[in-house]
């Protein structure tokens, strides 16, 4: 059916409310600005904040756009004088008891109350009565702090806990001007998705303990990226300043993570700037102790050792244990490396953990599906062949192989002539590797990742590592160059690799770096 909003016609679906219909069409707050607090596209309708009132022709009173169903030919006005004055009235009411402590509030800069107070608020309060005093720092649970004074009782957090994780920890207690959000005695806000309540809180009432007072949000640049905590590939914005990632917040993608992010994934940003990053290349000396060397030296040494293995045992004794943390481009380079050297010894190891029905997947890496799509098999076979002596030079990406169910395979890794480790973080593998090359995190490089459902999504450099590091793909490329392998003559260029991947692997057709849309696209044949 057709509706008209401020004179512009939209084709919308029947049975939707005005806000839902405009959100479906993609114009809400993106051409049609209807301020709202309590309505959220992924939660049930509450209708409590009253800010979204609009004028509907033929209806005497203003209607709340969140809960008014669209009707054929409906003519809606969102900017009329009556609507403006209603917004001013609602803002005055919502601000009656608000502490206006923006200078010490973490939400300042991304606060809807602040924005609309600026747009629709009065310069001076007309009341002289004291503002309602309430608790400023309520510890709601392990992740969230609550400021009762700032709360405007939109109930988004209450509905979220009931409707998304289904845990229902939060509620409104009492009524009228005594209403407050509370938890049940002895049942704190503690679920795998608790930190989303801070995202959806339109004011500064709910803030995360992790991000609280770390940095003013206007210093942050929001770089679109993908969470690497598990195979779901939730879309995020990386909040970046001073070459450091301060937080992940969810980036809406209705095909992947809606508007949510799990707590473990959200906190996985800490892995990027972690203290246990491998920050220098190393070679094992005669006593078996790793000694720091320049990166070029490590690459040259890796090539030299692999060359010797090829000379004595043949090219088939060279193996690649790839990482599901590497990008599709990195893995494609690995595939070409194997083809060029003439070996089929390959596999990938992935850590498994707890999953759920919502976002959290059992595979704790972002690109296991990419590894499968590029023909890599589970590492079990490679490890058993290595133990049997078929592999003498093994290039290992990451240290997922140390986890169950591969852990007992450590003896296989210890017995090879040459172990080249390409890794982001420190692990016991360093002590048995002959060559260690520091590599980039997904937040430090260009590339694409394939999530569990076969959706290819792009990552890009949000920060630069404060040490010399290569992507797994570039490290392998340089080793291949040093070995003089065919097809690796040009300097490494991730875009060229990406184009070659899209051209030569049918599943990735049309999915090179610059063609993948911001919300990703499914592998050919993966469906969506």
């Amino acid at each position: 059916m057709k509706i008209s909003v401020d004179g512009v016609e939209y084709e919308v679906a029947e049975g939707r409310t005005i806000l839902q219909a405009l959100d479906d069409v993609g114009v809400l707050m993106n051409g049609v600005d209807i301020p709202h607090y309590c309505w959220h596209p992924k939660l049930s309708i509450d209708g409590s904040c009253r800010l979204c009132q609009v004028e509907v022709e033929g209806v005497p009173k203003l209607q709340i756009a969140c809960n008014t169903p669209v009707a054929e030919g409906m003519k809606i006005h969102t900017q009329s004088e009556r609507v403006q004055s209603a917004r001013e009235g609602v803002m005055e009411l919502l601000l009656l008891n608000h502490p206006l402590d923006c200078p010490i509030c973490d939400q300042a800069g991304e606060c809807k109350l602040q924005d609309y107070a600026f747009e629709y608020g009065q310069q001076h309060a007309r009341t002289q009565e004291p503002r309602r005093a309430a608790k400023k720092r309520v510890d709601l649970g392990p992740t969230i702090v609550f400021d009762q004074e700032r709360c405007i009782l939109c109930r988004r957090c209450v509905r979220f806990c009931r409707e998304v994780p289904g845990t229902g920890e939060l509620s409104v207690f009492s009524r009228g001007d005594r209403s407050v959000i509370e938890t049940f005695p002895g049942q704190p806000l503690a679920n795998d998705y608790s930190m989303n309540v801070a995202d959806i809180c339109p004011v500064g009432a709910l803030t995360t303990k992790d991000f609280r007072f770390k940095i003013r949000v206007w210093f942050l640049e929001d770089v679109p990226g993908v969470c690497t905590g598990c195979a779901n590939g939730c879309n995020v914005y990386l909040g970046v300043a001073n070459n450091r990632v301060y937080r992940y917040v969810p980036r809406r993608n209705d095909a992947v993570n809606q508007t949510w992010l799990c707590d473990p994934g959200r906190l996985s940003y800490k892995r990027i700037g972690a203290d246990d990053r491998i920050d220098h290349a190393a070679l094992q000396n005669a006593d078996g102790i790793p000694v720091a060397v320049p990166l070029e030296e490590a690459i040259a040494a890796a090539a030299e050792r692999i060359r010797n293995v090829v000379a004595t045992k043949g090219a088939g004794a060279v193996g690649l244990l790839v990482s599901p943390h590497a990008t599709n481009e990195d893995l494609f380079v690995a595939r070409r490396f194997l083809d060029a050297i003439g070996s089929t010894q390959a596999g990938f190891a992935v850590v498994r953990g707890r999953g759920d029905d919502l976002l959290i997947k059992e595979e704790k890496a972002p690109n296991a599906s990419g590894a499968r799509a590029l023909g890599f098999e589970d590492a079990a076979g490679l490890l058993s062949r290595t133990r049997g002596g078929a592999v003498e030079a093994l290039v290992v990406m990451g240290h997922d192989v140390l986890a169950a169910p591969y852990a007992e395979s450590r003896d296989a890794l210890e017995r090879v002539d040459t172990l080249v480790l390409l890794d982001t973080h420190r692990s016991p593998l360093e002590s048995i590797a002959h060559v260690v090359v520091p590599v980039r995190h997904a937040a430090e490089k260009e590339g694409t990742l394939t999530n569990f459902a076969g959706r290819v999504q792009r990552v890009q450099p949000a920060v630069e590592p404060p040490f010399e590091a290569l992507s797994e793909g570039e490290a392998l490329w340089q080793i291949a160059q040093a070995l003089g392998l065919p097809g690796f003559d040009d300097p490494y260029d991730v875009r060229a690799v990406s184009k070659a991947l899209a051209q030569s692997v049918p599943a990735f057709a049309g999915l090179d770096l610059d063609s993948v849309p911001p919300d990703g696209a499914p592998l050919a044949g993966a469906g969506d």
Partner: protein
Amino acid sequence: MVISAETRAAIDAEIAKYPKRRGALLPALHLVQKQTGWISPETAQELAAIFEIHPIEVMEVVTFYNMFYDRPQGRHHVYVCTNLPCSLRGARDLLKEIEQHLGIESGETTPDGRITLGHEECLGACAWAPMLRIGAQYHENLDVETAKRLLDELK
């Protein structure tokens, strides 16, 4: 278990009257409070199990209504009306005097568990202001001395 078998039977009888189970929550709260005097977290949890809702949803209802109590109550409820006509006739001073006399503030219970004191909006006895109620009994046309004597007589 806080809720007695007898109360539970009465709750089940209420549930049978409603199309949706949770519709009987209000009568159930009345029944339980009659038995226990207040709704403790344990009671809320038992009720939540009966009504197949989150315990916190029971507390929502308890805290919404003034006459459900989320903490232990005294043996007598003394509520002073402080709405406009009573206030014009000195009810707020009366409440202050009573607070001093009992050594507690409105909303609190005496340490011996004898009296819970509160104030209330309009009990509909404006013509006989100021007034208070002790339980369901009204006491009207009060002065401070009469009020104190009434309270002292409570066991």
